[in-house]
């Protein structure tokens, strides 16, 4: 098992036909024309049958058809709202520190029962780089990178400053991701 150096075959000898451009044009056009006709037929067929799976083309008709993002996908970071309706976040500030873009700012407070919670939790969506370091830093699994990537676009930058209410999502909606990070990222057998 080893790496070997190997000369590339650059001495592409052009036959007379190839030198005359004509064959090249024909060959190039054949390849593209094959794609063209194949896609034409398949698109037409899917148009008639109404079955998008029959389309030979690669295009996803995005706003109508949604692509399936892989489990690992890091979309918009969201806060987890526990089943009892309270934030899971304990305002420890690890995500604030861990964020390389410094887009999170938290003001913590104390509940009457002595547990800590974030009084305000602001995440600047215009600055966030979706790196997932906050998720990794969070000891409570309170901030997770959801699979959600829609609805991030705004006409005004100030609207992208998400507050706590905009970020909180019930836990059961984030089951998949929470499961993923426990299984694939922080599992004991990975260490």
């Amino acid at each position, binding site marked *: *098992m*080893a*790496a*070997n*150096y*190997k*000369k*590339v*075959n*650059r001495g*592409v000898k*052009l036959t007379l036909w*190839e*030198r005359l*451009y004509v064959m*090249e044009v024909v*060959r*190039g056009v054949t*390849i*593209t024309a094959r*794609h063209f006709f194949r896609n034409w037929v398949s698109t037409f067929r899917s148009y008639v049958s109404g079955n998008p799976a029959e389309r030979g083309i*690669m295009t996803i008709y995005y706003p109508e058809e949604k692509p399936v*993002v*892989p*489990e*690992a*996908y*890091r979309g918009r970071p969201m806060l987890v709202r526990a089943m009892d309706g309270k934030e899971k976040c304990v305002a*420890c500030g*690890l995500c604030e*520190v*861990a964020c*390389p*873009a410094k887009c999170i700012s938290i003001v913590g407070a104390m509940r009457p029962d002595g547990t800590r919670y974030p009084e305000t939790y602001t995440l600047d969506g215009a600055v966030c*780089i*979706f*790196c*997932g*370091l906050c998720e*990794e*830093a969070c*000891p409570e*699994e309170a901030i997770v*990178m959801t699979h959600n990537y829609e609805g991030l676009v705004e006409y005004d930058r100030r609207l992208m400053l998400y507050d706590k209410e905009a970020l909180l999502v019930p836990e059961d909606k984030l089951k998949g991701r929470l499961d993923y*990070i*426990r299984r*694939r*990222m*922080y*599992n*004991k*057998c*990975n*260490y």
Partner: protein
Amino acid sequence: MEDKNQLDLNTELMVLNMGPSHPATHGTVRFFLKLDGEKIVHMETEIGYLHRGFEKHCENGTWTQAFPYTDRLNYCSAPQNNVAYALAVEKLLGVTDKIPARAVYIRTIMCELARMADHYTNLAAGTLELGALTAFIYFVEARELTWDIIESVCGARLTSNYIRVGGLASDLPEGFAGHVKSVFAKNRVFWSEFDKLLTHNRIFLDRMRDTGAISREDAISFAFTGPCLRAAGVEYDVRKASPYLAYREVDFDIPVGTTGDNFDRYLVRMEEINQSMRIVEQCLSLLPSGPININDASVRNPSKEDGHTYMESMIFHFKNTIEGIQVPKGESYVPTEGTNGELGFYLVSQGGGKPWKCRVRPPCFALTQAMGHMCTGSYLADIIPTFDMINLIGGECDR
């Protein structure tokens, strides 16, 4: 004779400013050209339009926080930058040998997938700017499929942020080998289509052959590395010269050219795509099971299970996140084979959680430097294939 005619006609040189928002310069380079008709008499390159303070940021963040910044160096092959940086930090920590085998293999796989994606991007941009729009789209399609694999592992299409000091961010997803296999089957079909569309095409050949050539000696003195150096006939590949990761274990060919012109660079890249697929397939067959992270809480954050169970682990978690990994005083340089050439990280630690100095050796910085040398005396149109084939990546060149 020619000079005399020019004197008679009282010609003057045309001064042209190409870029940085010129379609061929990728938005990050400016060429000052002096043209005699269509011939380039003098060429000066100005870079720095994408300087965004990579080193300063790394010095101001923890060792872990540098990963997102390394992603955005050579953004076409982010995992490679992650790996190179992680290797350099691990060398400083002295834990290079303790990285689990599975992590090493997965890193190798990611590096090679990134190399494929980068070459696809580069060739796509090259063909686009030579006017072959359909070939461009096919390259992007192939890259899209490769990115699907990368995304399923890392969670992001481009800026992967996947490698960590002492391991990986997450394990491979289920069904990874099958996914890779199906994608590679499609990629091989695409590969043969590119080959038919371009390699024997006389128009393409005429544009690429004997343009932007650089001799072996010049290439060495300009510190060329990677495909551009190998195209000039120099047998140097970090993967062979000083093997890292799992490259000792796998079998692959390193394509080498002869004349150092654009066509050789193109051929070397095309062949490297093939070889990368080979390496990935071998790595997948050799992939051991087991842990993916080093079991050392002072290097890699402990698992969440531990964190919830043991107080000590939780303390390490907090300390690693807030103060950063404690790296002993010292310095290290790790060369790796990036897609464009030798990608080395030179790290200086003065102890503590932040890098004192985090220098990346940008391969295309050296390549771009030679643009003037390679293009003077050729035609204006030759800038385009030459510039494409040196594969300037703004993030890496200007940092």
